[in-house]
């Protein structure tokens, strides 16, 4: 299989004018009783950036999987350049000019960029030997043409997420993808990397390709796309021209109701310091620490945000404070109490509650019932504990209270937590931890992968928790989340706190630069405010 040469010209698709390059019409897909797509339509034109938006469970991923040949639809038709087609596998979809960049990259870590790009589309030399030089040249050509800066000889395992994404795009371009689908492409990028990506995508559009971004970030939709298709409950509910619409209108189509988009920031009223961390260092006994000499203070009635690209020590910092990970040195105090040597359980008694990043692996026991999950942490003391046994009816009452108060959608507390949707499972974890009413709440990525409705709900709860006089330490990779909640923003990079910004200084530019490891004072003068 030799790669076809990429066509740079806008006419490459050869579509008759007015006819969409790719059309998905009346797609229906059921998984058991669940209808993932219910007459979903999508029309993609040559040379456009098309945003496919919708809440979680709206059927975006299913629809894209249909287009990419991963899922066969139960009903409906795919037309490419007007002709009905049927993709039995991604390979057939690729041959028809589709390309997909998944959220979780599919790369070979020990191989080079060039090797990854040409895998199964190699140029062969004599006797079927792999022509690595041709592979390097192919990558250089493509990366020059589309501004995808990457070293073809670099090993994948040494590259940053932003570069890995470029490699995935190169893979698709090497196979001459005319329609490039990107699933939540900015979820793991810094603002700077996002901007770079957008430039690349615009370049691809201008060369006549079709770019589809699947997202629920409205800011990106408005900034980047030409057209928008909105899915709700598996149906296409709106097709909009981006220039003629607003974020509020798109959100209304997504949720079917009016939404408070900005979740506008309301300042808190900080009082005395509650959580004090000094010189905390976490990591293996030798080698580079993952959390490096971090000091911070969170006051009562204050939300302190921690910004940073995932993997810069935020998770480890919060785990160390919560007592789930040993620290090498440094101290953690709650109120006046030093927590040195305290187990996670004793730290909870001292007043720490923790909403972990991963609600399914750490935050809950997915095989256990909702009631049991809500009881955890309360089970050692009355009223749930009665002497040496658990009071089952008290456990149920306790669960019902939290379910009602936090509006968790569940048929009965007896069902397994794993059957809940992502947003509801998150509400379960948030609800349980807030029910402790602990003076310190540690929160890690509270709204990752949950939809707009649940985000609104959880943000409101966090503000209310703060306003009840608690200290909240919030780590989030979403700048918009920090902007909506945080009274102060710390930025972590390489395990260190590299910036401590007051609300007023925490502009997207400042935070973004710090996230990329560039000190605000020296980076990009003249930009920002």
């Amino acid at each position: 299989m030799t790669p076809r040469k990429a066509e740079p010209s806008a006419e490459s698709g050869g579509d008759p004018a007015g006819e969409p390059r790719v059309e998905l019409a009346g797609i229906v897909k059921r998984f058991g009783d669940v209808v993932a797509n219910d007459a979903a339509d999508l029309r993609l034109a040559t040379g456009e950036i098309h945003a496919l938006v919708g809440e979680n469970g709206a059927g975006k991923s299913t629809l894209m999987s249909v287009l990419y040949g991963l899922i066969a639809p139960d009903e409906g038709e795919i037309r490419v350049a007007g002709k009905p087609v049927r993709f039995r596998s991604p390979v057939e979809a690729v041959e028809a000019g589709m390309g997909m960049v998944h959220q979780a990259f599919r790369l070979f870590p020990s191989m080079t960029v060039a090797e990854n790009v040409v895998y199964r589309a190699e140029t062969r030399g004599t006797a079927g030997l792999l022509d690595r030089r041709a592979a390097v040249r192919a990558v250089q050509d493509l990366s020059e043409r589309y501004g995808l800066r990457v070293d073809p000889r670099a090993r994948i395992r040494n590259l940053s997420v932003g570069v890995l994404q470029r490699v995935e795009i190169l893979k698709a371009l090497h196979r001459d993808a005319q329609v490039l689908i990107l699933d939540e492409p900015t979820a793991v990028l810094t603002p700077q990397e996002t901007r770079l990506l957008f430039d690349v995508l615009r370049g691809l559009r201008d060369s006549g390709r079709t770019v589809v971004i699947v997202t629920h970030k409205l800011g990106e939709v408005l900034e980047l796309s030409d057209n928008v298709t909105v899915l709700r409950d598996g149906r296409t509910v709106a097709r909009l021209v981006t220039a003629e619409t607003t974020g509020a209108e798109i959100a209304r189509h997504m949720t079917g109701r009016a939404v408070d988009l900005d979740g506008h920031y309301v300042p808190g009223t900080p009082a005395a310091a509650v959580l004090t961390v000094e010189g905390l260092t976490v990591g293996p006994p030798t080698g580079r620490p993952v959390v490096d000499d971090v000091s911070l203070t969170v006051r009562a009635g204050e939300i302190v945000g921690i910004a940073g690209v995932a993997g810069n020590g935020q998770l480890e910092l919060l785990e160390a404070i919560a007592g789930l990970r040993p620290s090498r040195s440094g101290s953690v105090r709650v109120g006046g109490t030093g927590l040195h040597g305290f187990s996670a359980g004793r730290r909870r008694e001292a007043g720490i509650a923790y909403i972990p990043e991963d609600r399914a692996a750490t935050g809950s026991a997915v095989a256990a019932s909702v009631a049991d999950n809500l009881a955890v942490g309360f089970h050692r003391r009355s009223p749930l504990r009665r002497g040496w046994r658990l009071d089952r009816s008290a456990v149920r009452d306790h669960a019902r209270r939290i379910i009602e108060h936090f509006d968790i959608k569940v048929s009965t507390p007896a069902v397994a937590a794993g059957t809940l949707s992502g947003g509801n499972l998150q509400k379960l974890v948030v609800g349980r931890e807030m029910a402790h009413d602990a003076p310190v709440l540690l929160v890690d990525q509270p709204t990752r992968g949950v939809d707009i409705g649940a985000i609104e709900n959880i943000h409101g709860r966090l503000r209310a928790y703060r306003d009840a006089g608690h200290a909240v330490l919030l780590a989030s990779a979403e700048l918009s989340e920090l902007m909506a909640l945080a009274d102060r923003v710390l930025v972590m990079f390489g395990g260190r706190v590299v910036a401590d910004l007051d609300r007023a200084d925490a502009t997207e530019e400042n935070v973004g630069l710090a996230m990329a490891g560039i000190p605000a004072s020296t980076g990009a003068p003249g930009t920002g405010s």
Partner: protein
Amino acid sequence: MNVLTELVDLSLIPSILRALTPVLLAALGGAICAKAGVFNVGLEGFMLVGAFAAVAGSWFTGSAWVGVLAAVLAGAGMAALLAIASVKYGGDEIIVGIALNLLAVGLTAFLLRTVFGRQGTFTEPTLQGLPTIAGQTPLTYLAWLLVPVLAVFLRRHVWGFRLQGVGEAPEAARSLGVDTVKYRYGAVLASGVLCGLAGAQLSLGNVVLFSQNMTAGRGWVAVVAVLLAQAAPFGVLLAALLFATAEALGFRLQGVGLPSQLASATPYVLTLIALIVASVRARRVLGRAPGEVPSEDRPPVENPAASTHVSRE
């Protein structure tokens, strides 16, 4: 000094080479599997069945080469069981491999009694062994030749390149349309063929007889060689050479009065030491990894919460 000259002289080389061939052939088979992402611990059993089939084939046809062919087919047959059970039906390859090793011991002992009516050992003066060229069987030359061939195949050939991708990130290979099952079948069958050759070398080359459990752990030594060399062909050669030298020296030590039990334990003691060294090294590499690669440069850890929501959509 006297003992040393008695132990080490030029005549040691042929005995090292003889001891090397079976281990090297089996280990190369194991290396192919490892590259394809299959940890094959069935080498011992494949080899034992191959050794038996070689003797049976040679005895009933009077041709050692038919014996080699029979060994290859028998090794491939055993490998096919592993491939079907673990590659196709997703059984645990370690458990299946161990089961096949146990099967091989029982099966060959059983066949030894039913086919040859013997217990323990079968040999006859008329049983044809492999011819030798300059004191070594053709299989020895083949084994050495396979080392560079395999190295080039894995590093330079398109199929070898794809095979390594299959082993490293099967999901990624599949997403690009590579049939990972086919590649793994091929790798496992190739290891069966090579183990069959290894068995034939044991029973028609090094000696001309079959005795119960005559592989005596050489397949496990091959597994260790694969681990030590991280499946690189030339590394496998070095590791196998180490064990072969130990085995040959062990024989010599018996000659100078070391108790035979101790002497024949030498290669296995060496194996144990090598394993410990390898695991310590592996742990050190793992422990250092976060320090070497800055955390921000690591590929993203897949976010299970996000991926469950994707699959649910």
